[in-house]
């Protein structure tokens, strides 16, 4: 919803396509950004909207997230300890807001991210 709203807003000033098309691109970009993966190609989009523009959005959006460490199981054993005064999940074990992962830490702790 947020990505489609952003795409719709940008579509009011960008030429060449309908507001709905820009909303679709925005939605795809936001989903690709928060999940940092390129998986949001629905068959409907592939069949009717597979266009360089969609691929560009799907590649550009995740790149902007490179400063946020991506959570992977391999990252867990080498996680730094919680920083002094830090609350919540240690940043090194945080994943983006769009991911959903539950993995058991070697020490028995569990990390869950929602989507």
């Amino acid at each position, binding site marked *: *919803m*947020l*990505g*489609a*709203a*952003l*795409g*719709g*807003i*940008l*579509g*009011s000033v*960008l*030429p*060449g396509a*309908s*507001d*709905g*098309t*820009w*909303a*679709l*691109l*925005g*939605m*795809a*970009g*936001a*989903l690709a*950004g*928060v999940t940092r993966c390129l*998986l949001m*190609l*629905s*068959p*409907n989009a592939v069949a*009717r909207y597979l*266009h*360089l*523009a969609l691929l*560009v*959005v*799907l*590649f*550009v*959006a995740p790149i*902007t*997230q490179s400063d946020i460490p991506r959570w*992977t*199981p391999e990252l867990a054993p080498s996680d730094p300890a919680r920083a002094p005064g830090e609350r*919540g*999940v240690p940043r090194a074990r945080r994943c*983006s*807001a*769009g991911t*959903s*992962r539950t*993995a058991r830490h070697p020490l028995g702790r569990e990390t869950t991210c*929602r*989507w």
Partner: protein
Amino acid sequence: VFGTPVAAVLLAVELLLFEWRPRSMIPVAVAACAAEAVREALSHAGLLRAAPLFPMASHASLPFSVTLGAVLVGIASGALAWVMTRCVYGAEDLFGRLPLHWSWWPAIGGLVVGVGGLIEPRALGVGYSTIGAELAGRLALGTLVGMLIVKLVIWSVALGSNTSGGILAPS
């Protein structure tokens, strides 16, 4: 729900199974194929809606200018995703600093969601109809701006308060 088996396979492997290996890919692909077959059968029997959840009209070939605009949209949506992620963790940290027992957090989050709903009712709920309206280009610019702000706030506060929530469909 979405009738997108290919995306479902990639999503499950990427976000849940962590690895791009046949041992992960094949079982999920088989499950997705089976689910799609059942979905087709149910839709033919009239038990499910056969139409896509978000139907979109076909259009003519897009000009190259759209590709240039897509770079801007990609950067902007990536920035939005960054803001969304930061807002969720910021809200979590904010709740952690509250001098209240954690059992009160969902109530506070619910209160914020309710107030946001009074400001922009379209931001409430699963949001399928709102997303459909967005993709159909039926919403005015002011509505989109208001919804973007309100939804961002109530979504991040709701998740930060440890209430259940999501991002793929509801947001």
